[in-house]
Structures are given as C-alpha cells and as structure tokens.
C-alpha cells in the first residue's frame, strides 16, 4: 500500500478513481471544489468536467449510471438544493453504474449562506449516506459507496464537512479497480418515472429500506467501544477526533458509539443506550442523530447535545466546545487581544469594483430602491466601502428578486450577477423578465472565470454571453457590452443610467478578466518566475 498526503476532498477523488469511475461532474463550491480539481489535474483518462450547475451535473451523472459506468458527482451543500430534483427522484431509479454524490457541508458557514446538513437530504431521499471522519475513511468510503450503489441500485451520498474536506493528512491507498464496461440499464421502465412506474419504484424503495438498515447495522463504520460509567458518547464524522483528543483527561473512558452510516443503525443505538443513562451526541451540522434519539416522548435515557445547550446550536464543533460538553475545565490560555476584523474584500484592481462604482454613480440622485445581488466575489460589494447591494440569497436570485420588486412597484430595480452565476441559475429568471419586459436593469459582472472558488473556467466563454442574451429575447437596443475599467468610468455610468431610466428590461454585460486569473495565467506561462 502506498501512502499519500491528501486533502479530504482529494482522497474522495482518488477513491473514485480507484473505484473505477469513468466520469465525474460538479459545480465549484467551497468546500467541495478540490474533488473535481484533483480529477481534472491528475486524471485525464476520467471524463471530469465542470457543469453549468449542480442539477445538470447530477443529470449527466445519471446518464453515465444508466450507461452502466461509475460516476462521481460533487457539489457543496447548498448546491444539492439545486440538484435536489434529480437527486431525490434518482433514489427511485434502478441505478445501474455506481453513482456517488460527494456533498460537502460547511458548518460554521466559512464560505456559505447557510449550514444545512446533507444527512437530512439523504434521509429525505430515503437513500444511503456514508460519513467519513478523516481523509483515509473518505478514501475508503468513496470506494465502498460505489459498491453499495451497485449492490442496492441507489445513489449513495458521501457527506463531508469543511474541516474534513480541507484537512491534509496521510492516506493509505489501494489498487485500482477497472472501470465498468458499457452496459445500458435493462429496460423495465425503472428509469421512466411516470406515475404508475414511480408508484411501483417508490414502493420498491420503501421495501428496500430494511436492506439499507441491515447494511448499516452491520457496517464496520459504526464502532461500539466499551467503557465505564453511566454516560455514553455518540460521535459522527470528525467529532470523533475532538472526543479522542480529550479521552486521556477523562476520569473514566465512557462507552462510545461512532456512527458512520445512515440510515442510523437503530438496533446498535438501542444496544448502546441500554448500557447508559445519559448520552452526549457529538455531530457536526444539525442535531440529526440527537433529534432521532430524543424523539418527542419521554425516554429512559437523557440525550444531551446541541439542543440541550451542552454544545452550541450553531457553528462547527471545535475541540474546545467538545471539551466543555465533556465537563473538562478550560485549558489555561492568554486572553484574546481585541483586534479589528479583517473581512474578505475585493482584490486591488478587481473589475467588479469598477462595475459597482459605475452602478453607484448611475444611481446617484435616484431614489435608490433595490440592487439585488447574487453569489460570488462581487457580493463583497455589500460591505463598506462600496456598500452598494441590498440582497444575496442564492444562485440566480438577484434577477428573480429584481423582477418581483419591480412588479411590486419598486423603481429602479437592478440585479447584479456574475457571469458564471448567471449561467448557473440566471437564464431562467431572465426569461421571466424578458417575457414581461419588466422595468429592471440586469448587470452581468463578467470576469470570465468562476472567481470565488479559485478561477475555474466558466462553461461558455465570455464572447458567447451576448448572443445568448439576444437569443433569450433581450432587446438588442437595450443589451450592451461594456468594459469594466476605470478609464470608462464616466461612459459606463452614463450608459447604466440611461438603461435604468428605460422603462423596460435592459441587460448590461460588464466585462474584464479577473485579476487573479490574469496573475495565475502569467504564472503558468514559462519563464515568468513567479513564486508560490
């Protein structure tokens, strides 16, 4: 066995390669991005590609599975909301080639809008979920997840969290399994979810829950460790390490159950609970296991966790919050020194700065009603010194919200959205605005890359954006390309102002390449001599 040093994300990618994947799809999103990046950089033989959004990524993965080949699909937790339609329905299909969904949650919201827990979505879809606790188990579980997917004919979810995805550590890797031959799923209508088939498939999925549970009950990923005392601890994911860190300091080693598979191994949980009077549940994300255990009726075993205040209800777990929950005294440490926050900000020379300044200039003197914005670097323009945006909700929301606000009577309304966010989820709401010729102005801040996640290429080049807009039906006389550069500050502001005053739909594409992407491109060029 070879040992490699890998990020949790990279371990998932390598696990997929060694499990014989033929393809991989995803949309960049912290903390999941490095899974597909690893495949793109290291394995040209795997057809890995970024998709326009998580839904199309998932649907492409379904096509691969139907063709009998193994496929990995990756996204961040909120991306699974976008892919929820194909994902939830795919549990009713007769999955053919193994399909594994690696979804990375972001408890603590380091780089996200919420801290939703993908274990609940796996449960919602009634499918199997594996939860690794380090890069090694991420590698092992990814391999196993493909076998499970083919054994049970369901998509299998691999749930990661930020600290696992972005922690680098040693991983022992095994031998590669060859990819599956092309072998289309047998034609029994199991992929045609017409109501009659769907009812049959749904019933079949429900009947197979017992098989999933039996797998979970006997999985080696659920580890019961004997201990003494009446207070037991259940851990899931990386919380296991925060407990392990403190075991030497505890007076007695408590009975411990580590959970790594879902559906929850109910019989194992009952067996564990029978030895104790109190259970502390340590899990990152929602109090999922905690709630399942507690239920609503009085129970003989007290359940402690996030909902009882033993641990914070929000944010990621830390060694220190776990320490407190275990009843250990705080370690002596220096008091913190109050220092000013240093929030992320737009880079020097960023084209978004010029776009937003031109917009602010254009809005000068108008009753500023609404600048709806979106997900991307430019969202940082909501913070001082620009402080120019009113909203950021989810991918593509800016355009729909601007339309709704305009319908409701707010004037002027502006939507500010990035190029890749527009391609991801902005086309459809724009069509709503085109159909109604809504009085609103859409500004597409086109930096020609997916900037925030590290400069992945946008799906179609910038030059194709304009014909797409015209094709959608944006009136050509109100569809403009401008260069987001200080030297055009005045003319850009004037143009935006004119279009804001136009009582119908306008779209302005403000183009200039991301400065980070320019820098990276120069660094890649030979003999440029840049470091890092």
């Amino acid at each position: 066995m070879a040992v490699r040093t890998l990020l949790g994300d990279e371990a998932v990618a390598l696990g997929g390669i060694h499990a014989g994947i033929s393809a991989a799809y995803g949309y960049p999103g912290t903390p999941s991005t490095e899974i597909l990046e690893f495949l793109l950089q290291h394995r040209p033989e795997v057809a890995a590609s970024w998709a326009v959004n998580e839904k199309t990524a998932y649907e492409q993965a379904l096509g691969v599975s139907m063709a009998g080949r193994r496929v990995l699909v990756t996204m961040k937790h909120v991306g699974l909301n976008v892919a929820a339609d194909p994902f939830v329905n795919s549990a009713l299909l007769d999955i053919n080639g193994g399909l594994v969904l690696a979804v990375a949650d972001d408890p603590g919201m380091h780089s996200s809008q919420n801290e939703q827990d993908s274990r609940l979505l796996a449960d919602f879809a009634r499918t199997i979920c594996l939860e690794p606790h380090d890069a090694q188990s991420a590698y092992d579980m990814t391999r196993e997840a493909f076998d499970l997917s083919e054994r049970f004919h369901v998509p299998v979810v691999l749930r990661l969290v930020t600290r696992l995805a972005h922690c680098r550590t040693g991983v022992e890797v095994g031998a590669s399994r060859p990819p599956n031959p092309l072998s289309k799923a047998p034609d029994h209508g199991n992929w045609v979810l017409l109501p009659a088939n769907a009812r049959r498939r749904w019933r079949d999925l429900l009947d197979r829950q017992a098989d999933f549970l039996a797998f979970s009950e006997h999985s080696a990923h659920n580890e019961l460790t004997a201990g003494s005392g009446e207070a037991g601890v259940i851990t899931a994911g990386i919380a296991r390490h925060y407990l392990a860190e403190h075991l030497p300091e505890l007076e007695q080693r408590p009975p411990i159950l580590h959970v790594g598979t879902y559906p929850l191994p109910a019989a194992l949980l009952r067996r564990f609970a029978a030895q104790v009077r109190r259970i502390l549940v340590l899990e990152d994300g929602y109090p999922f296991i905690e709630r399942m255990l507690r239920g609503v009726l009085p129970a003989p075993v007290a359940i402690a966790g996030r909902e009882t205040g033993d641990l914070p209800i929000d944010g990621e777990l830390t060694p220190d919050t776990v320490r407190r929950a275990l009843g250990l005294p705080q370690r002596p440490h220096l008091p913190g020194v109050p220092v000013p926050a240093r929030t992320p900000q737009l880079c020097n020379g960023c084209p978004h700065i010029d776009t937003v300044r031109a917009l602010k200039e254009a809005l000068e003197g108008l009753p500023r009603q609404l600048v709806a914005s979106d997900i991307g670097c430019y969202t940082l323009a909501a913070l001082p010194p620009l402080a120019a945006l009113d909203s950021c909700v989810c991918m593509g929301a800016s355009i729909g919200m601007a339309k709704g606000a305009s319908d409701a009577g707010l004037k002027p309304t502006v939507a500010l959205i990035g190029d890749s966010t527009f391609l991801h989820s902005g086309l459809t709401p724009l069509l709503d605005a085109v159909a109604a010729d809504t009085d609103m102005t859409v500004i597409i801040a086109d930096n020609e890359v997916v900037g925030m996640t590290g400069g992945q290429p946008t799906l179609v080049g910038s030059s194709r954006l304009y014909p797409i807009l015209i094709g959608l039906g944006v009136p050509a006389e109100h569809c403009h390309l401008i260069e987001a550069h200080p030297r055009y500050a005045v003319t850009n502001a004037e143009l935006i102002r004119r279009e804001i005053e136009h009582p119908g739909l306008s779209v302005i594409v403000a183009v200039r390449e991301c400065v980070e992407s320019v820098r990276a491109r120069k660094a890649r060029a030979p003999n440029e001599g840049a470091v890092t």
Partner: protein
Amino acid sequence: MKFDVIVAGVGGQGVLSLSSILAAAALNGGLFVKQSEVHGMAQRGGAVTAHLRLSSTPVHSELVALGSASMILSLEPLEALRHLEYLAPGGAVVTAVDPVRNIPNYPALDELVAAIRLLPSAVEVEAAALARRAGLARATNMVMAGAAAPWLPLRPDDLESCIRMLFASKGPVVVERNLAAFRAGREVSCSPIR
C-alpha cells in the same frame, strides 16, 4: 512530542504554501501531521489561518485547541495577535512585522509591535526586507518558514529539500532565491532579538 502551530496571515500572502512546506517536512521527518486549511471566500484579502498539528503519535483533532499552540507563525503583525488565545503557556509567536493595511481601522504599528513585545516569547522578523535581499520580494513566507525553523521539531535539511521540491518547476534561480530567503529568516531567529 506534539507541536501545534497556528499559521496566520492575510489572504494572498502565502499562508497555505507556508503551512504546506512545514507539513511536508514533518512527513519527511516521520511525524504524523494534520493540516487544516481555509479555502474560498476568506482567501480574498481576509484573515486566513491554517492549523498545523505535528506529533510523534497519531493526531486526532483537525483543529488546534485554545491554549495549546506551541507556536503562532504569522506573516503579518495584526494577524499574529488575532490568535493569541490559541497559544500554549510557553509558546512562541514568530511574526513578520510588515503590516498589510487593507482595512480602514488598522491600528498604529508601534502599538502592535508593543503588544507583541509584551509576549513572553516573540520573534519579530523584517520579512519583506529579507525577502527582497534574497532577490525575491514575494518569498516572505519562505523567510518566515526559516524564522520558525529553529523552534520546530523539523530538520532544516528536510525543510530545504521541501522548498527545493515545491519550486523545482520554476527553475533553479527561483529555488535558490527561496532557499536564500529561508536561510535569511533562519538566521534572524537563531539570534533572537532578546
């Protein structure tokens, strides 16, 4: 042996490559390592940290606990102070003194330096000047790797061979200048200010 490090700085300064070099050298030296990085939004000019845990026995937690870091290694003086709660009693702060003033309420530099000098064990490094003298202004993170080196449970040779490997693709000149930066940092730390 257990040695936890908080590596701090501002997005774009090279916190991740600094932390990676130390982690790689530790692995070469036969230690167990967990290195937690921050990616995504925080990298855009915000405060960035990496938690690096080195140990002769397997490492559990991905994160360093409060009061347990043997070292805070910072590429920026304000960022050195942000994480003091993590410092173990007897732990060292090794920091570059060159401020990154990208916020309007950046404190006066002499106040920051005074606060750093109050700490029981602190090394201030003129990282930018040393990097320039080594011929590579961007190599401040390698200067800081050098400044940290005498305190770390790592062999300087392991660190140097990791630097060679990391920059090999950039050609021998870049490798030598990064090594020179590393050695300049190491020299400062070997002859502490106090």
